[in-house]
């Protein structure tokens, strides 16, 4: 039958990265190792698996600076067919609405049966862009998906909810966001990396998309960033196991008042 799949990905800081603010109070990206957002890796892997099963094409799409090309190349090396990067200096301060508007423009120009994305980006942690994209495209979406079964014109998916799961039948085209547990992403093979160099990676500006920065002013403003106050840890409860356990229980009740 052939399933055309668009996977939206984001390049994020490594989970091991320490967050530092620069002199202007902005998050400092210097010296930080960049990775594909881990949840987006599940989306890429699922897209490739569905393509391998049904035929079709996987296009990865991202918005970001020129470094984002690395993330897209990795996705191509895993097995995606084409990549599109939207990169524009005017997209310096964006919010979820802006990103969704830009992605809508890109994705509406593509043929798709299924759009996949991670359920959350581990940097801004807002879980919004994919769902907003689905709304703009007028297609249904299911968030936090653990299992996908594609049939003719329809998919049956299992979604994680608080304390359980839901089984949902959803019409194609649709958008699904990937939760950990959906699959185990592959590492790019050497052959995959070689092939990826020849695959198409298109870079677009807002002008290429017929869009103006003035129409894309973020709805949310970030007034400032701050860092958490370091916790004052280090206090040890003395004594052998029995004495320490007894003292800890007492402290939790009488001092911390949490029991």
């Amino acid at each position, binding site marked *: 039958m052939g399933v055309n799949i668009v996977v939206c990905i984001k390049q994020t800081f490594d989970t091991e990265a320490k967050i530092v603010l620069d002199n202007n109070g902005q998050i400092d990206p210097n010296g930080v190792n960049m990775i594909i957002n881990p949840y987006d890796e599940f989306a890429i892997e699922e897209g490739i698996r569905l393509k391998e099963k049904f035929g079709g094409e996987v296009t990865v799409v991202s918005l970001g600076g020129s470094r984002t090309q690395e993330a897209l190349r990795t996705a191509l090396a895993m097995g995606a067919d084409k990549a599109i990067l939207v990169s524009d200096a005017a997209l310096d301060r964006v919010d979820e609405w802006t990103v969704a508007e830009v992605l809508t423009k890109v994705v509406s120009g593509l043929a798709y049966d299924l759009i996949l994305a991670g359920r959350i980006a581990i940097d801004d942690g807002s879980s919004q862009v994919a769902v907003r994209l689905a709304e703009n495209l007028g297609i249904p979406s299911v968030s936090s998906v653990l299992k996908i079964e594609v049939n003719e014109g329809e998919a049956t998916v299992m979604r994680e909810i608080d304390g359980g799961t839901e089984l*949902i039948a959803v019409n194609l085209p649709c958008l699904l966001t990937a939760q950990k547990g959906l699959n185990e992403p592959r590492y790019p093979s050497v052959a995959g990396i070689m092939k990826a160099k020849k695959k198409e990676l298109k870079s677009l500006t807002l002008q290429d998309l017929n869009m103006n920065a003035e129409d894309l002013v973020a709805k949310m403003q970030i007034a400032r960033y701050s860092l958490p106050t370091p916790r004052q840890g280090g206090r040890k409860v003395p004594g052998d196991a029995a004495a320490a*356990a007894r003292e800890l229980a007492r402290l939790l009740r009488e001092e911390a008042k949490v*029991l």
Partner: protein
Amino acid sequence: MAKAIWIFVEQRKGQIRKVSLELLSQGRKIATEVGEPLVAVIVGHGLETLARDIAGYGADKVIMVDDAKFAEYSTGPFTSALNQLIRQEEPQAVLFGNTAIGKDLAPRLAQRLGVGLASDCTDMLVDHESFLAFKRPIYAGKAFAHVKTNVRPVLATIRPNTFPLATPDLGRDAEVVRANPSIDASDLKAIVKEVVIAASKRPELTEANIIVSGGRGMKGPENYAILEELADVLGAAVGASRAAVDAGWREHKYQVGQTGKTVSPNLYIACGISGAIQHLAGMGSSKVIVAINKDPEANIFNVADYGIVGDLFEVVPLLTQECRKLVQD
């Protein structure tokens, strides 16, 4: 123009989610501060008995959408319903719990309304220019963004356990208004076929007041029994570190950290957890942290309010005994 603060009250099978009551409690304070009404919006089926509880937590008015077609949560119908109500009533702000439903519904609704959304907030303040300003953890709590918007309505999802529950005033009354928003065929492209709620007497990880969590030091899946015993005594949830989940000892839904759940319970008991930066990011906002680890140099001790250096297989059962005594008193 009706100015009001709306709380989306989430319920499942007639049971109101704790985070919704937390939002009503805090919403009441803010509504009083700005002198505007607090309105609860609840969507579902068979909701008659819930209005009194909602009123008790401070709502001035309850907008009730009670219809069989809203019996189970589904993105399309719920988005349509709220979109219609919001366009009709024009509230200043609409607040949701950052739950599976809140995370799915709020972004879709925000896009349909063409407004911003502050996700997973851990603080909310009255702001003269933008009505409300929010603090939200980014990089799983390694930093915070302080955000606001000039667009109305202001939409936000608030993390569970952020605001304390008020003592309900059972004598309080609220005006109950029934609404009948329509849905159309395009809302029904995704149909919930089956809902499976795991039978568990334990609280949900993100809503739990106390979490007992185990890492690599647990040495194997069978040993979580000692944490479950402690959790049973404390009415706690049981969490795990990424190391334990990657080893296949616990399911991912129990993972605490940057690639799992971010939690802020009153008490977090970390057993055999070294304290990797990505774990600390997920639980660093807990009010009190306890660490039990045999390595005195473990990083977790740097953030723990109380630490015991020792063998968790010896300490945890003893702690369970001590807590049982306290709870029975």
